[in-house]
């Protein structure tokens, strides 16, 4: 795949190297600038925005993380690594880290596994399969805040749909969102419901790209369905799985609206993840330094995780 992109690029390069007509001294001098003015014109607006609202904030976060500041007072107090030291020793922050890991592993692992299972099911040539695919993907395009609001209603232990399901199963529904352990489970389940469609669609596209000949060859070699799945389907889906792991890890670190509406980080701190903590420290407790330090920790954590995922993935995934 990469190879073909390369050749296209080369073709473009040769096309663009075709010299325009007429090459007097003046036009040659003008051509020294060539496409530069247009290049600058086309790219500047976007680059300026990226600089001001993406790269500068990154540096500014590092700067703020070394300060003590309440967002209001004109003076920022330099405190060195105090904010980081505080976070390292704070038991609440440790709980926040633990919650973040539980939430990330739950949602990322869940969406990838369920997404694969759903994709395998929805890849069958059954009647009404297009509609089924449509239903599975629909929650992904919905607002997380709105989704969370009606899930609060569904999870209500007295009159919610979950109470009905529990009573069918012969038990009583717990109060999910106010339970110190189950609140996180509920948040993960809602996130799964909302996001599994994305993994499903991506896996479906991947399944449809596996060359039929591979299955035929495997069948000729005497492979049954389980073997074909293990030795053809799974390896072929490797790069996609890697892509999904990286992308859903990044998006799970940014999950905010679901948590804000479902539990507001509670009960106590049971569902406070890193992003929620950063928002709380910055915009509720007005502790800019601590919020910035937590943000830097999150950025570093995410960078390390993505790097490890890609490295491990590249060793185990074959792209051919």
């Amino acid at each position, binding site marked *: 795949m990469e190879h073909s992109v390369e050749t296209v690029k080369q073709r473009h390069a040769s096309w663009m190297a075709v010299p325009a007509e007429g090459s007097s001294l003046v036009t040659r001098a003008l051509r020294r600038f060539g496409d530069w003015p247009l290049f600058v014109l086309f*790219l500047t607006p*976007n680059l300026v*925005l990226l600089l001001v609202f993406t790269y500068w904030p990154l540096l500014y976060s590092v700067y703020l993380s070394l300060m003590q500041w309440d967002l209001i007072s004109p003076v920022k107090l330099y405190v060195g690594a105090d904010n980081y030291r505080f976070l390292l020793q704070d038991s609440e922050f440790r709980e926040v880290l633990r919650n973040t890991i539980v939430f990330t592993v739950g949602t990322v692992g869940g969406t990838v596994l369920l997404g694969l299972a759903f994709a395998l099911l*929805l890849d069958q040539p059954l009647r009404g399969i297009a509609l089924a695919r449509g239903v599975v993907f629909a*929650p992904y395009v919905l607002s997380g*805040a*709105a989704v969370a609001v009606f899930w609060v209603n569904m999870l209500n232990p007295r009159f919610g749909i979950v109470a009905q399901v529990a009573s069918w199963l012969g038990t009583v529904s717990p109060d999910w969102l106010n339970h110190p352990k189950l609140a996180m489970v509920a948040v993960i389940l809602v996130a799964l419901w909302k996001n599994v469609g994305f993994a499903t*669609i991506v896996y479906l596209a991947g399944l449809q790209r596996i060359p039929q000949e591979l299955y035929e060859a495997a069948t000729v070699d005497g492979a049954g369905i389980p073997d074909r799945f293990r030795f053809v389907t799974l390896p072929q889906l490797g790069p996609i799985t890697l892509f999904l792991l990286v992308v859903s890890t990044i998006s799970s670190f940014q999950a905010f609206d679901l948590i804000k509406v479902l539990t507001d980080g509670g009960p106590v701190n049971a569902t406070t993840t890193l992003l929620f903590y950063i*928002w709380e420290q910055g915009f509720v407790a007005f502790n800019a330094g601590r919020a910035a330090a937590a943000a830097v920790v999150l*950025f570093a954590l995410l960078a390390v995780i993505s790097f490890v995922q890609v490295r491990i993935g590249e060793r185990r995934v074959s792209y051919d």
Partner: protein
Amino acid sequence: MTRPTKLRRHAGRLLASLLVTLVVIVMGLPLYWVMTGALKTNREIYTFPPVWIPREPQWNHFVEAWRAVPLGRFFVNSLVTTSGAVALELTFALLSAYALVFLRVRGKGLVFSVILAALLVPNTVTLLPNYLTAARLNWINTYQGLIIPVAAVAFGVFLFRQHFLTLPRDLLDAARLDGCGHMGLLRHVVIPLSRPVIVTFLVIYLVAHWNDFLWPLVVTNRLEWRTVPVGVAYLYQVEGVQNWGSILAGTVMALLPMLAVYIAAQRWIVKGIGGGALKG
């Protein structure tokens, strides 16, 4: 074919159909629940076992929701913010990708890396500094504040660049020889050839901006500047748990625009998002 294998195949199909039905029910039930919930009387809502089909649809819940919070204003804000941001992003992405593919300039690779690297910076890290920047610019509770800080585009540039690299060279060549300048080439050749990618782009960014919660929450603090997602969360807060009918009605209204977009563009979304992901 022997009979047992045929039988087994039938059984397999039946099992697959059953499983697919189960998946559809589990995934679709919440949507059914919120849609019908909005139409139930409050007595039907607060009862157990739950009522599955509202006896008489209660359309007045929608009016109640509209009265409880300025929903109309939320919609206008979301509409302006979303269309403004998406329009800016589409323009930036098309121009950037065009420059990166078709202009003869050295160092394009470096510029592309600078754009792409932005994908590695999560909004978490930029949240507080961007709020401070917006505050310094007096952009709190303004459309500029809602739009401009989130209008930079990285993934979209990547999306268009990948597509532009596959455009047929002969056609572009011919247009060039006919004296087509870069603007003409972009308008009359490249954009018409990129319609499917543009639709994919529009859907992805439309959904992202309409649903965005954190930035609007931070950059606005007056009710009349809230967007739909923040507004719905607010509706849930003020109506408390006493009036689920109007909360659910407001929620349905918040969900409908994206559901409509989704149903209208489903073909493109499924193809675009599935396929677009694979190209990366």
